[in-house]
């Protein structure tokens, strides 16, 4: 089945928020931002050469409720408080609106934020100086611990080989092609005026809750509508709440509609990015390559506010030991505050960082023991019945060794390795190599997250017999609309044209949870099935009634109940055998995991230290593949995003602010930078997630391939592996 809204996108007919017609009197809004990494804001100086009566200006004093962006800890202000502290460069301080966009630009440039700079914490790897403390005694945002077995005893074992490694990853910008944008206006409602916010977003109910909290409005007077969303990748998980509040504050003060559309520079400077990480491994292995103990320290740069860092850290540490069995594991995770734009959700949510370290470390171990890296993985990959670092017993029947072997076979690693050896011996400056990785990804929210979400979903039988799915889950390119239609049509025996998917509008759809964590097809898709059963029951139909019988029953119901609404709902119920203890971090961290094995082939130019990925194979086990084209597209897109993270994409900061905030010098892969991505699926049971899994494996596979290409004395351990980072390793190899 083809993507349902695909033709509208191909013809340019799809309407994103900036394509919506401007309502009469609509103003353009823009943002005045902090010029320092950290400082006390004394006030705003408005250039007297401008007639400010023409403009609507909003600052922190205009916020009716608490100046807090509703999320985990509510520590991020909506606008940096006048008289209080601004915590990062480009933090929003004031908002300006005018009917003429050019006039707003000039007005923003005519505002000076008067600020007393304060000492900023900019390197997350260094302990903060006393005058850099902004949270507790150590700027710690969150600390978590996983403990299994006795790591200390295993590390002290006489016959164990100890292998250590330190691995670092950089910030990554999402670069969804549609920049963030939002519109806000006021409508009359039965219980007073209703604030309507419409825009590009992943999580309408996050936005709704943020508006209720900071504006002090109850749910009946706020409505949030998702417009067509041009990519998210996590970048539109929490930031749209901020943007919605900004548009709403201007609209409420102006009593007119307001539209804020970021340009690329503002979007890259002001919105969230992937957490930079440093992961230290200390591993005890037996001489035959069995993991005996893993001591892992995970450190994340959280940026200036808590935002989502605790949960990114949580997913990060749970994935830090990879898809391997090890009897003794200790993982300490810390996320620390620095004066950067808050780091946030980005495809993989901490797991790509920690699995980069784990999978690079596996090759370092293999090199130390002189064992083939593929064989080392085979010996340690989880078998069903074994336990993860949290003690979760792995089941489900996936043969992870077969998965790896299939990728190795498809990529023809054996022949390639021989060819590369001959090529490398003969060529004056090009070196080729292959590298592998094996990863897992927990599907859905971590631990009891899905229980707390209490997701709900409705289906509605329409008068003409069609069925409409009412959910807050958003389409952002990953295929929600198509997959939901497929699931509902399959469940009811309907043609796809007889299923409608409601626009996510909080006045119409129940809260089916955020569109994140690879949870939509699995968790919300399951709710569609339950709600369809419920609908049959309401109609008095036996279970498994399908097609025309359901349709006729809906049509007759409407004839007998003219003007009434025929709805059936579903609520999330956790699987009975999934038990998680969030105090001890023990138990079933996820209901199920997806798995992937990757093989990357690279060519390194020793003259320029440039790395090119020349082939990429990935075999994935994501349960039942609902739509092969969409699933392959998710994997290929994720792999290419990960190639960018591994080799090209570097956020450069000065005083905590991104200075290469433009696509001219923040380089993402083009079609000519990447090879075709060869994707295979190994059929599994049930429905799992596919969105994030492909982000986990490529970066370590590529660096493993680089290490194989240039010689194993130099072990690259940091991404992005830009030529200037690789060159010293090549030199070191040559002189070793």
């Amino acid at each position: 089945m083809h993507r349902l809204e695909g033709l509208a996108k191909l013809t340019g007919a799809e309407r994103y928020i900036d394509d919506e017609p401007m309502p009469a009197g609509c103003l353009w809004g823009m943002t005045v931002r902090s010029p320092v990494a950290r400082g006390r804001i004394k006030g705003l100086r408005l250039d007297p050469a401008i007639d400010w009566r023409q403009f609507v200006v909003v600052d922190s004093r205009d916020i009716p409720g608490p100046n807090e962006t509703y999320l985990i800890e509510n520590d991020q202000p909506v606008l940096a408080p006048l008289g209080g502290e601004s915590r990062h460069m480009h933090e929003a301080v004031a908002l300006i609106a005018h009917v003429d966009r050019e006039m707003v630009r000039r007005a923003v440039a005519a505002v000076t934020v008067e600020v007393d700079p304060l000492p900023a914490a900019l390197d997350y790897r260094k302990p903060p100086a006393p005058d850099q403390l902004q949270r507790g005694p150590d700027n710690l945002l969150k600390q978590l611990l996983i403990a299994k077995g006795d790591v200390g005893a295993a590390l002290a074992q006489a016959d164990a080989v100890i292998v250590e490694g330190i691995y670092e990853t950089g910030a990554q910008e999402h670069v969804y092609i549609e920049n963030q944008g939002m519109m806000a206006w006021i409508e009359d409602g039965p219980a007073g005026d209703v604030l309507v916010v419409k825009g590009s977003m992943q999580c309408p109910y996050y936005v709704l809750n943020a508006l209720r909290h900071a504006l002090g409005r109850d749910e009946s007077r706020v409505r949030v509508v998702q417009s067509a969303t041009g990519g998210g990748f996590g970048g539109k998980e929490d930031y749209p709440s901020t943007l919605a509040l900004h548009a709403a504050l201007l609209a409420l003060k102006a009593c007119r509609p307001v539209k804020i559309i970021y340009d690329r520079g503002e979007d890259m400077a002001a919105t969230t990015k992937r957490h930079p990480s440093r992961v230290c491994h200390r591993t005890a292995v037996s001489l035959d390559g069995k993991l005996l103990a893993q001591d892992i320290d995970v450190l994340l740069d959280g940026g200036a506010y808590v935002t989502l860092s605790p949960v990114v850290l949580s997913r990060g540490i749970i994935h830090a030991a990879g898809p391997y069995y090890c009897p003794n594991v200790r993982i300490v995770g810390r996320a620390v505050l620095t004066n950067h734009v808050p780091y946030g959700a980005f495809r993989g949510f901490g797991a790509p960082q920690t699995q980069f370290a784990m999978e690079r470390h596996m090759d370092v171990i293999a090199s130390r023991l002189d064992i083939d890296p593929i064989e080392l993985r085979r010996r340690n990959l989880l078998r069903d019945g074994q336990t993860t670092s949290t003690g979760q017993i792995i089941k489900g029947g996936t043969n992870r060794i077969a998965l790896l072997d299939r990728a190795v076979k498809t990529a023809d690693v054996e022949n390639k390795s021989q060819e590369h050896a001959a090529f490398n011996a003969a060529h004056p400056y090009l070196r080729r190599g292959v590298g592998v990785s094996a990863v897992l990804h927990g599907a859905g929210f971590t631990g009891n997250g899905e229980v707390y979400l209490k997701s709900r979903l409705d289906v509605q039988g329409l008068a003409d017999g069609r069925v409409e799915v009412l959910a807050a889950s958003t389409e952002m390119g990953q295929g929600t609309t198509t997959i939901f239609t497929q699931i509902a049509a399959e469940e009811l025996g309907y043609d796809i044209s007889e299923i409608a998917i409601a626009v996510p509008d909080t006045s119409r759809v129940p809260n089916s949870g955020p569109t994140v964590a690879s949870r939509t097809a699995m968790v919300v898709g399951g709710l569609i099935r339950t709600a369809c059963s419920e609908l049959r029951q309401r109609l008095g139909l036996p279970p498994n009634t399908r097609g025309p019988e359901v349709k006729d029953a809906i049509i007759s119901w409407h004839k007998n109940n003219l003007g009434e609404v025929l709805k059936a709902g579903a609520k999330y119920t956790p699987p009975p055998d999934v038990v998680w203890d969030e105090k001890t971090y023990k138990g079933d961290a996820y209901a199920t995991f997806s798995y992937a094995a990757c093989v990357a082939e690279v060519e390194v130019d020793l003259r320029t230290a440039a790395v090119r990925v020349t082939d990429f194979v990935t075999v994935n086990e994501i349960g039942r593949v609902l739509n092969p084209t969409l699933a392959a597209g998710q994997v290929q897109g994720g792999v290419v995003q990960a190639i960018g993270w591994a080799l090209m994409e570097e956020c450069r900061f000065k005083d905590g602010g991104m200075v290469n905030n433009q696509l001219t010098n923040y380089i993402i892969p083009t079609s000519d930078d990447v090879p075709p991505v060869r994707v295979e699926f190994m059929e599994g049971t049930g429905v799992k997630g596919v969105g994030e899994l492909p982000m986990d494996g490529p970066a370590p596979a590529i660096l493993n391939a680089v290490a194989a290409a240039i010689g194993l004395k130099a072990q690259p351990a940091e991404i992005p592996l830009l030529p200037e980072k690789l060159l010293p390793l090549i030199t070191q190899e040559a002189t070793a």
Partner: protein
Amino acid sequence: VSASDAIQVSFTLNGRSVTVEAPASERLLDTLRYRLGLTGTKEGCGEGECGACTVHMDGLPVNSCLVPTFQARGCRVETIEQVPAADLTPMLATGATQCGACTPGVVMTAWWIRQNPSALEGHSMRALMAGNLCRCTGYDGIMDGIHAWLRSTVSKEGR
């Protein structure tokens, strides 16, 4: 003439003559989107890197964010709205679009390749498409889609 002074510009847009009054500094992208209501052309980066705003000017693909509207005076401009929908089904089947924000630009470059297939004699498809950034597909769906479009025979001239 200063940057904010309005000037009058006439050009041929999707086969029809149009005349607009716009500030001398206005970008063709904004004229198309905000003055003429043709919102199929998207802004991605505003500096000619991503190709989302690709239109044809006198038969050549250009980044409309880098073209001041006055430069279109007397030119033939074609936008995504001019590409027949029936042509695009091969790209639908291969997964050439996901979020859709880059897609109109991708289609406009692909349309140019379709009209000028000899370009493929000296360049690979991947090289010809390198001016259109896509963050969703990893490009395989796009490559397969364009090849399928080139093979298809529906309305070769595209109008």
